[in-house]
């Protein structure tokens, strides 16, 4: 078992954890949000939204102004600290990356930390533990999974990690940058058989989702093609951006490649939800563009 999976497991049955939803979970990826909260409820975890949260800066801020790109996530983290949320889960991979990168930058440079504290006019200590959704599942869901699985998830799946979940590897220190494994392991525990999938961390087109759909169609098309080719019945993701490129842009992709790909794209949280018997609607499966026929 890789080192990064040997984290201590917290067994206590009731948990209060902060959650930073970011823009996508309240908008285009409400299905992801619903499945995360449905899981939390099923496993007796209270997710507390960080009060008065703001934009993480996403891809825009760090292209324009470094201080701004650090100040936005720093304010979110400072708010979490203020409200006593020592641990926060960040389901969106882009938000996760911004928050961890900011925490790391400010830890390295105390002077910068003081300056950013002044900018946000708040105390910032940098003490919060930031988890992505797979770390959160690993820590709180997997150990409690025994006896809860009612529908073995007997499907071949392609686990697609995208870029932001594992990179930059030196900063995130999470899973291995080439051929990551954590999501494959989670899916195996549900009964699924992950395929050997070389497109795990290939680019989906990311932020070009809005401005250059042709690029997204080209890149995401390759990711889908390989998953279909290997006989996967679903692509499993943990990032709203990946999801919208592979799911929402499917008609563009099929038009670009002159194909009729029908493979559904589901969030890892939705897969767990189905396995423990939550209704499809409750985990947001009815909101997909590509119909999800598996259960």
């Amino acid at each position: 078992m890789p080192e990064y999976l040997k984290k201590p497991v917290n067994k206590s049955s009731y948990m209060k954890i902060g959650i930073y939803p970011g823009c996508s979970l309240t908008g285009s990826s409400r299905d992801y949000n619903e499945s995360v909260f449905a899981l939390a409820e099923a496993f007796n975890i209270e997710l507390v939204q960080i009060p008065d949260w703001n934009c993480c800066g996403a891809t825009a801020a760090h292209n324009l102004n470094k201080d701004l790109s650090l100040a936005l996530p720093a304010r979110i983290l400072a708010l979490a600290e203020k409200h006593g949320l020592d641990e926060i889960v960040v389901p969106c991979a882009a938000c996760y990356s911004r928050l961890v990168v900011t925490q790391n930058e400010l830890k390295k440079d105390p002077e910068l930390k003081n300056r950013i504290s002044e900018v946000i006019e708040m105390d910032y200590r940098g003490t919060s533990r930031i988890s992505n959704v797979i770390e959160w599942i690993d820590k709180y869901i997997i150990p409690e999974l025994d006896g809860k699985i009612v529908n073995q998830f007997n499907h071949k799946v392609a686990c697609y990690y995208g870029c932001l979940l594992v990179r930059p590897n030196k900063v995130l220190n999470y899973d291995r940058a080439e051929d990551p494994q954590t999501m494959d392991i989670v899916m195996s525990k549900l009964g699924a058989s992950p395929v050997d999938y070389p497109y795990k961390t290939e680019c989906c087109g990311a932020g070009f989702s809005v401005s250059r759909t042709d690029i997204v169609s080209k890149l995401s098309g390759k990711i889908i093609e390989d998953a279909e080719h290997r006989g996967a019945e679903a692509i499993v993701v943990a990032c709203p951006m990946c999801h919208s490129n592979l799911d929402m842009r499917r008609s563009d992709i099929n038009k670009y490649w002159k194909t009729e790909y029908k493979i559904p794209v589901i969030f890892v949280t939705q897969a767990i939800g189905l396995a423990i018997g939550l209704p499809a609607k409750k985990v947001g499966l009815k909101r997909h563009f590509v119909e999800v026929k598996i259960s």
Partner: protein
Amino acid sequence: MARIGVFVCHCGENISATVDCGKVKDAIGDLKHVAFSTEYKYMCSDPGQTLIKDAIKEHNLTGVVVSACSPRMHEPTFRKACAEGGLNPYLCEMANLREHCSWVHDKNELTTEKAIDIVRTQVEKVKLNSSLQPIRVPVTKTSLVIGGGIAGIQSALDIANTGHKVVMVERSPSIGGHMSQLSETFPTLDCSQCILTPRMVEVAQHPNITLYTYAEVESVEGFIGNFKVKIRKKAKSLDEKACTGCGLCTTKCPQKKIPNEFEQGMGMRPAIYVPFPQAVPNRPVIDREHCTYYIKGKCKICEIVCPTKAIRFDQPDEILELEIGAIVVATGFDIKHADFFPEYGYGKYKDVIDGLQFERLASASGPTAGVIKRPSDGEIPKNIVFIACAGSRDPAKGIAYCSKICCMYTAKHAMLYKHKVHEGKAHVFYMDIRSGGKNYDEFVRRAIEEDYVNYIRGRVSTVYERDGKLIVKGVDTLLGAQPVEIVADMVVLATAGVANSGAEDLAQKLHVSYDSHKFFAEAHPKLKPVETNTAGIFLAGACQNPKDIPDAVSQASGAAVKVAALFSQSELTREPLVAVVNRMAPPLYSTCVACGMCKPVCPYQAIELEEFKNREGKVVKKAAKINEGLCQGCGTCVAICRSKSIDLYGYSNDQVYAEVVALLNEY
């Protein structure tokens, strides 16, 4: 009354660029007891040394301070000059103005002041120096060669041919090393085994060479000319004298599924085995880790079939204690394997192999009898990709250095493939082609121009499997960073050469330095590439850094000459900078109270307790005694001695105290 001479060196501009040497000379010249002070551009040059010699005579000097570079660099030079000038060499001290001052500071007043302080400490010290005589020690004229690859073989044969004894220790069951695994060698494409095996036999038969295979160095003590080495002869579970090497046991052993190390895991071997048919010695050993008898307590088939009853299941390891005068370290290298490369599948694809595995595939004695068959299904690959610099020159992988041999062996591999599979296509991804060496670049051009190997300048980002083919994605940087995708049947990684396993452990046993990659460190990168910083221990071959065969052999012969030169003397002289316990007339004998605290702290086991007896033979006093042959002058005993009875020649308490006081006092 001390008369000290001070000689300030400019070291070209190395010192004078940041230190005002004239000012140093003047300031020191004003000190009490300094009879003469001067400066010169190159003090180590012939005129510089003459300056010192003349000044000793002219000013009747009682001590000399040369203010120049590190004593590690030129202390012997200046001590010799002093001796030639008529002064005891140990009355000469060096003040290190270069490494300790000019190289590490900017040019300003403070730098010059620091330089003056450094010289002052040495002036104070040298006033207390005493004349010392070098210690003479005998030389044991037997050398130890660690490692039986081509470098070790060459060294051993060269030393043995000068008439001196050699003990060769090899940890695997046969000598031959990596060279015995190679198919053909660049740049001539002659068969590796054919040129190596006669040498291996020569080692085994040479009257001056004692060969211990399946043996490892257990411990090394002592010093140049007088090492005491313990060797562990691992149990071969075999009476080597009784065994005739008929090989019946190896064919009858029921355990046949052990990955063969010699074949790089591409073939299987039994538990009792000879690593390869040309092995020297050609006698089997039992691999106790995998032998059914040692695991389950039953089997003994080899014992039953052996016609000469040579199997010895209860044979213990044997420890040999040897007296050795010089050591040649020739422990070789290893390579990174495919599992080191996440982007190429962490070794999970059977048809992504490393260079040594390809050597075995191409070798007539290999698992496929020289037919290039891919490991997964035995098909002959039609499209083969070679990836050079897999790991090497890649700081992200922690290996910033060039492994030196890969460009050449990749060209060789591609060529061998094309010679065996005429219709096949060979592609090589490379960063640069580094083919410096006699007839080397011509060899690479031959691969490109005559064998039509497709060289693509660029890195490979990923290799993955799809429908039984390997998809190699890379870039062609000569075509404007155009992406390249090759559908290959087999991929060969020219993986980085790395230090051999156990190198760090051995270096610590030998007390020699090693670099951050665990390669053994030479004493000087240019002028002492064969020596280590421990006298009497020399390096040969790829244990120092990856090397090709000609380089390894040249260095091995170099090491042999160093050993022969050492053995040409009947006695060695040693620096007399050793610890000494004070002695005085009876009834005191010594201020030492024989508490024995110094004994356990001595890292060289140089201290024992001496007894003083009266006329009746009764022990009246005990005191510590230091064996000056073993003492390395580290001073640990001086520090721990509670009664201040031990002192160090050349670095006495008084001398060190004088240095410190000199720094504390304004001048």
